[in-house]
């Protein structure tokens, strides 16, 4: 496109299955100077609602998309340009963008997400891979989650890495059979996964239970972890919101699940009906309730974590960072205080337990900086 100083804001692709998104409302007015991470507009997909944050510094000059517009991935939402660029130049830029923009072909859409499968000792695991060059990164979701939890993470980080996201046993579409729910057993499934797909060493990124598993791998097999990024991790403190886990396991309806899942985030609007429905569908799969109970029993008793590896963080030789949301209602953020000096700690304001979803831009920047 012609003008070097004009930058488009386009419909993001949140997750492998996203084809289009709906503009809910603009949060930044025309004339606002945006910094990376500033809230620009709210977007809703069939899976999730979230705030689109500025990726770079710039002056918002034009809101092209209007509230309620449903637009495909890559469509023009707005325009950023310095004040020196004239309105006529922006008009010309918008016209040229619209003239050249081709929405993704429908047959591409029909293919859907490209899931991959691998057989390990524990059974069949589902995973996805994005990115062809650079070091391997493995994204490990938390209790009750699945690889889809990384929808704001996987593609951005894949700009400079080969990013894998897998479903843990008992989760997503991976095997629901689970002989042993202990952290060490689950961690060895991940190292088996790495071996099976040919990854010798990887940057490990884990959220919550997944953070505990990443840490467990780094302690048991330090040669396989290039770095550790632990997002609101389990297993580095004693306290945990056991009521959340019990409620997640026992909840049977949308009405039961909504207040439980809202504890995951600082902004309860993030928990859409579709997100709740997807979790209910998962919980109603044969073998899932048993698997969830087995895994929960492996790391939590009441409101206490059963495994605390905090004292061992200082032994780690690879780079380690901990990222926590200040409003975390599942694992208290004070556990990020007083960690060993080799651990970099980032506490993010206005964010709950799902730190990688609520503050995607900031978390992605921290993850990329760590590669």
């Amino acid at each position, binding site marked *: 496109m012609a003008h070097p100083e004009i930058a488009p804001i386009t419909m993001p692709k949140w997750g492998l*299955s996203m084809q289009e998104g709906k503009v809910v409302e603009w949060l930044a007015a025309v004339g606002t100077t945006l910094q990376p991470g500033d809230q620009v507009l709210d977007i809703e997909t069939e899976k999730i609602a979230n705030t689109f944050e500025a990726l770079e510094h710039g002056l918002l000059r034009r809101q092209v998309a209007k509230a309620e517009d449903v637009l495909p991935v890559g469509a023009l939402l707005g325009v950023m340009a310095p004040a020196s660029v004239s309105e006529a130049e922006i008009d010309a830029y918008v016209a040229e963008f619209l003239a050249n923009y081709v929405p993704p072909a429908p047959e591409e859409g029909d*293919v*859907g*997400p*490209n*899931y991959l499968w691998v057989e390990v000792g524990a059974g069949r695991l589902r995973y996805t891979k994005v990115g062809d060059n650079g070091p391997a990164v493995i994204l490990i979701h938390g209790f009750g989650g699945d690889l889809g939890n990384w929808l704001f993470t996987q593609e951005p980080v894949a700009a400079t890495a080969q990013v894998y996201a897998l479903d843990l046993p008992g989760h997503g*579409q991976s095997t*629901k059979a689970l002989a042993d729910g202990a952290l060490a057993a689950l961690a060895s499934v991940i190292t088996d996964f790495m071996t099976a797909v040919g990854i010798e060493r990887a940057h490990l990124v884990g959220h919550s239970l997944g953070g505990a598993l990443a840490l467990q791998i780094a302690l048991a097999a330090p040669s396989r972890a290039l770095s550790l990024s632990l997002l609101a991790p389990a297993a580095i403190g004693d306290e945990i919101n056991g009521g959340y886990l019990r409620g997640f396991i026992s909840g*049977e*309806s*949308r*009405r039961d699940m909504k207040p439980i899942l809202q504890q995951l985030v600082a902004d309860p609007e993030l928990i859409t*009906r579709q997100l709740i*429905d997807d979790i209910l*569908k998962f919980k*109603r*799969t*044969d*073998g899932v309730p048993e698997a969830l109970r087995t895994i929960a029993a492996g790391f939590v008793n009441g409101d206490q974590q059963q495994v605390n590896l905090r004292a061992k963080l200082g032994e780690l030789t690879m780079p380690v960072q901990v990222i926590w949301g200040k409003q975390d209602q599942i694992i208290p953020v004070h556990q990020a205080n007083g960690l060993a000096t080799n651990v970099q700690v980032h506490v993010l304001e206005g964010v709950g337990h799902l730190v990688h979803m609520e503050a995607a831009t900031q978390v992605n920047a921290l993850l990329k900086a760590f590669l």
Partner: protein
Amino acid sequence: MARKISFQTAINEALDQEMARDPTVILMGEDVVGGTGADGEMDAWGGVLGVTKGLYGKYGNRIMDTPISESAFVGAAIGAATCGMRPVCELMFIDFLGVCFDQIYNQAAKFRYMFGGKARTPVVIRTMIGAGFRAAAQHSQCLYPIFTHIPGLKVVIPSNPYDAKGLLIQAIRDDDPVIFCEHKALYSMEGEVPEESYTIPFGEARVVREGKDVTIVALARMVNQAKKAAEALAKDGISCEIIDPRSTSPFDEDTILESVENTGRLVIVDEASPRCGMATDISAMVAQKGFKFLNAPIQMVTPPHTPVPFSGVLEDLYIPNAGKIEAAVRKCVEYA
């Protein structure tokens, strides 16, 4: 890549997985094996439309072709259910319920109640519903309101492949008699369905589409018609919320009432006859419990009160469609 299969395959897969899981699950009905001993494709055809094809080869005499005697085999299935089996019996067309109704409504539906909760009757009666096939007045009805009327029966009406599999597995595992209604026009519909077994509880409506101006409640084939209407109306800025109750007994009143509280307007689409049907039933429920939410009279989109016509032209006029739903929604929205 997410797997897509047809509604018909989803039903077959649910039966297959439950038969593999539980040896007490048996199938019986007219032509469910589809005869044996013929060559190739003709061997064990698997029901008039091939829904149970392939199961005879796997489960042998756990699948029984029965004589054309609904009163006998429906009664036999109910009897087997009381004796520890989990039979899935197929009443080919719901229109034939007349010849086996005593077994269903005065026997199966009553056992748990009359034996003080000590008796279980875990039978599923799968049956085809719906018009649109030029199959005339005796093979085209949507008689689910008749079963819904009977306490002691559960009545399930899936509208898509995902729900068909999960609801059928739930039906087979349920300890009460379940009438499972399959719309003929949906068998070829494709949708994403997980390979694993899963359940969907009865009495939980699905919100098919969220919207803020009008609530449309629709069942079975009418859900797709409602979606088409909603898409057309969206172009004019009318936002429709579509609710698929999925089961009429038990029935999820709350999801409908919550939706009407937000929209203030209700359109009910029912392919069953207009008198004493789901449209009138839901309408009465909302008028009673949600009167204060309503900003316009409730609209019902149903066929006329006549038998299903054999003439193709008349049959097409008889069945509710997206155009009629759209008109009803507009009437609702335009009400001063």
